């Protein structure tokens, strides 16, 4: 047993190395440019595919392998530099949320581009004899290549530390991490520095991707899997700290591989518990410093809607009801989807706007609501109204518990951690076949006959509208004002007796409950639930809706939701390259209005 544990720990160390390579690149890029590179997992994936192409053309001896891996890393580095020049340097002044969304758009485009070039099938690397050999450790056979990986992590850590502390480039890196404005004032041309940093970070990611080839094939799932792990590692280790990234990578790697031994089904949950523990004790991460406060974007004055706007809103509602009642099933299902989207977007807006917090995993609550309603109907056999209540309670409770851990984090860290949680929830939904049905989802969730067709349509519109109006009432209640006060001037608010953290936690819970209701309505409207209701794309849908309509007003996100559902869903999803199209559209919108789409 002890031997098995030791071997499993060693396996964890080897996976920690690849994790560290990717996370350190992410950390270096963030430290200098203050951009959280969502496309970092895609760079890792690019490294894997480049590595596959190069290595399949080289002999299968260790030296050629090393050469091939280096070529792949260099290729990825060059791509990273190019990405900085054409895109990222236009984003440095944009709000953090738009930076995340823009680099996510890069992820979307790269996914389709890589699939177009290399094809959809997994590409395993033909392994030479040395890659298949084993070393006896404690009476067990341990792969030689894993030992190589274990060594590479600390070697890269040492090389990076020497570079940071001993070279002129490293000195500039440290200076830029500390105070970019000062460095610029001293006459250092930041353009070259930033390009070089992107190349370095991308190179590390590419190296990590190419090195993982012998164990995992080059495949299209790398990007999202890697970015989730890397986010966890960077936040747990401390944003911008390379040593912290290694420490966290070892923790997460070992935890994951021991977790498979101890709790085969819930190794993911174990990682999340570890993360929660570290962040509860040290919100700045293991080796992170409580650094400079992030700049919060400027918000305009929020005004309540005037009479004309209220009348227009009422007219839209009446028109929707008329079209739905007079039209057929298709019209009703489109309108139901729009109503659900409006509620979903409005719930996210409470966080992004008045709450001043970035959530990049809002789909988690939507999905938890959808699954709770589905399981309530199929397993517990409760009637529809009870299933809806169950969904709201389930999503709200989860949001409260997760919020309890995460709400103290600063803007970008919170965004990364909400994404990580949503990805874990998604993984649970896909893997827990017995309960969730895995990728097959849960089918046959139609409302009962007495509640079907037109009646459900009316219920869906009524509940969505009530939800949206309730959220609006909250924004203009004392609670909403105090929430904004905490966002606008945190110190001033605290000195006036406003406990902003408590208010934000309440807003997080409320937004989660509302999103849960949206998810539940959506599952009855479509008659089914799939893991896609929890996927990152669902979160990005919500973000796009809010940004499209504008985060500065209450009605903006609702209009955004209607427009997004109407246009994007019908036009874009019809295409085979919907990811690339969505990504390019997002990029175009963001570059057109880097300060935010509203106003």
């Amino acid at each position, binding site marked *: 047993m002890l031997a098995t544990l030791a071997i499993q720990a060693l396996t964890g160390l080897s996976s920690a190395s690849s994790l560290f390579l990717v996370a350190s690149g992410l950390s270096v890029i963030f430290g200098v440019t203050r951009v959280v590179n969502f496309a970092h997992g895609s760079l890792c994936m690019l490294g894997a595919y480049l590595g596959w192409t190069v290595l399949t053309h080289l002999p299968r001896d260790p030296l050629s392998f090393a050469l091939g891996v280096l070529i792949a890393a260099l290729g990825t580095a060059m791509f990273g530099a190019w990405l900085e020049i054409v895109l990222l340097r236009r984003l440095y002044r944009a709000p953090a949320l738009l930076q995340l969304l823009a680099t996510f758009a890069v992820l979307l485009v790269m996914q389709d581009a890589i699939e177009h070039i290399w094809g959809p099938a997994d590409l395993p690397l033909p392994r030479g004899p040395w890659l298949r050999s084993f070393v006896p450790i404690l009476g067990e056979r341990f792969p030689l290549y894993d030992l190589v990986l274990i060594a590479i992590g600390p070697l890269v850590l040492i090389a990076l530390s020497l570079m940071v502390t001993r070279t002129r480039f490293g000195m500039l890196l440290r200076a830029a991490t500390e105070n970019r404005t000062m460095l610029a004032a001293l006459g250092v041309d930041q353009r070259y520095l930033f390009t070089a940093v992107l190349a370095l970070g991308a190179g590390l990611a590419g190296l990590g991707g190419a090195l993982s080839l012998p164990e995992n094939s080059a495949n299209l799932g790398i990007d999202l899997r890697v970015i989730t792990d890397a986010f966890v590692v960077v936040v747990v280790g401390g944003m911008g700290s390379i040593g912290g990234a290694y420490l966290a990578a070892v923790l997460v790697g070992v935890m994951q591989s021991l977790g498979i031994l101890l709790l085969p089904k819930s190794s993911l949950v174990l990682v999340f518990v570890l993360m929660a523990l570290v962040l509860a004790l040290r919100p700045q991460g293991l080796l992170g410093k409580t650094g400079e406060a992030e700049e919060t974007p400027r918000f305009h004055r929020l005004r309540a809607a005037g009479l004309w706007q209220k009348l227009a809103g009422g007219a839209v509602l009446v028109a929707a009801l008329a079209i739905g009642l007079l039209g057929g099933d298709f019209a009703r299902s489109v309108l139901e989807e729009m109503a659900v989207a409006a509620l979903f977007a409005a719930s996210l807006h409470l966080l992004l706007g008045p709450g001043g917090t970035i959530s990049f995993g809002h789909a988690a609550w939507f999905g938890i609501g959808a699954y709770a309603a589905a399981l309530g109907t199929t397993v517990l056999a409760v009637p529809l109204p009870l299933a809806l209540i169950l969904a709201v309670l389930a999503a709200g409770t989860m949001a409260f518990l997760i919020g309890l851990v995460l709400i103290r984090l600063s803007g970008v860290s919170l965004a990364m951690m909400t994404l990580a949680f949503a990805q874990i929830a998604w993984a649970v939904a896909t893997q827990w076949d017995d309960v969730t049905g895995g990728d097959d989802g849960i089918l046959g969730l139609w409302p009962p006959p007495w509640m079907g067709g037109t009646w459900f349509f009316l219920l869906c519109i009524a509940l969505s509208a009530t939800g949206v109006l309730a959220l609006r009432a909250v924004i203009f209640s*004392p609670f909403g004002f105090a929430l904004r006060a905490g966002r*606008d001037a945190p110190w001033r608010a605290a000195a*006036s*007796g406003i406990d902003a953290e408590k208010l934000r936690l309440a807003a997080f819970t409320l937004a989660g409950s509302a999103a849960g209701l949206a998810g539940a309505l959506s599952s009855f409207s479509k008659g089914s639930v799939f893991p896609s209701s929890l996927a990152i794309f669902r979160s990005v849908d919500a973000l796009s809706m809010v940004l499209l309509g504008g985060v500065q007003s209450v009605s903006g996100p609702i209009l955004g939701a209607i427009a997004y559902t109407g246009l994007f869903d019908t036009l874009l999803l019809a295409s085979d390259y919907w990811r690339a199209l969505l990504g390019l559209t997002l990029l175009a919108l963001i570059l057109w209005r880097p300060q935010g789409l509203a106003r």
Partner: protein
Amino acid sequence: MSLFSAHSLYKSFGGIGAVQGVSLSVEPGEMLALIGPNGAGKSTCFAMLGGQIEPDMGEVRLNGVALHGGPVSFAHAGIGRSFQISKTFASMSVGENVQTALLAAQRQLWRLRSAADAQVKAEAICLLDRVGLAALADHDAATLAYGDTKRLELAITLAATPRVLLLDEPTAGMAQRERRAAMELVASLAQDGIAVIFTEHDMQAVFSFAHRILVMDRGILMAEGTPAEIAANPMVQNVYLGTV
């Protein structure tokens, strides 16, 4: 027993003792000035008095009871403060700024009702009138001139009906005429029974309005007395006033 007192406060940052054993007390209606050269530790001292920073040693007491729990509990206990660089709630109107502070002070934040309730609005106007901003109640707070921002912050602070008022450079950035008016306003608050502690770089304001002056240098209190005593103190003249 004093209304508000600090007992041998210590605070160091990375081995540098910013405040090393400061004790003080203030009574209702009193105006206490805390002065000293840059880096003397006034701001750190203020942050401990307001609950923004927890002291390494020592404690802050209100009516003899030690205060704990950070700025929010200090605020609810009746300690109001302004900041050297005033910040107000930028996404609200001037009036809404004060309304929000009123609702927070009256512990009405969790009530489901409109924040623009007529009674709260009237109370806010009353406070704004006191600081001379009533005419600007509907303006965006973000567009106020700096002196007006300071006044708005004072109204926000007063919304909590504080018993102790900590004012960090209440006249910084104001024109000469505005300064006098601002200090007269503060003096009228003290006359109503509020205990006021303030820091100030403008010596004219200090010596014409303070009842008592504490002089800080390098983290310790080096002199205490009435304006006349402080003005005559050769040590103070040497360390502080001599450099003016």
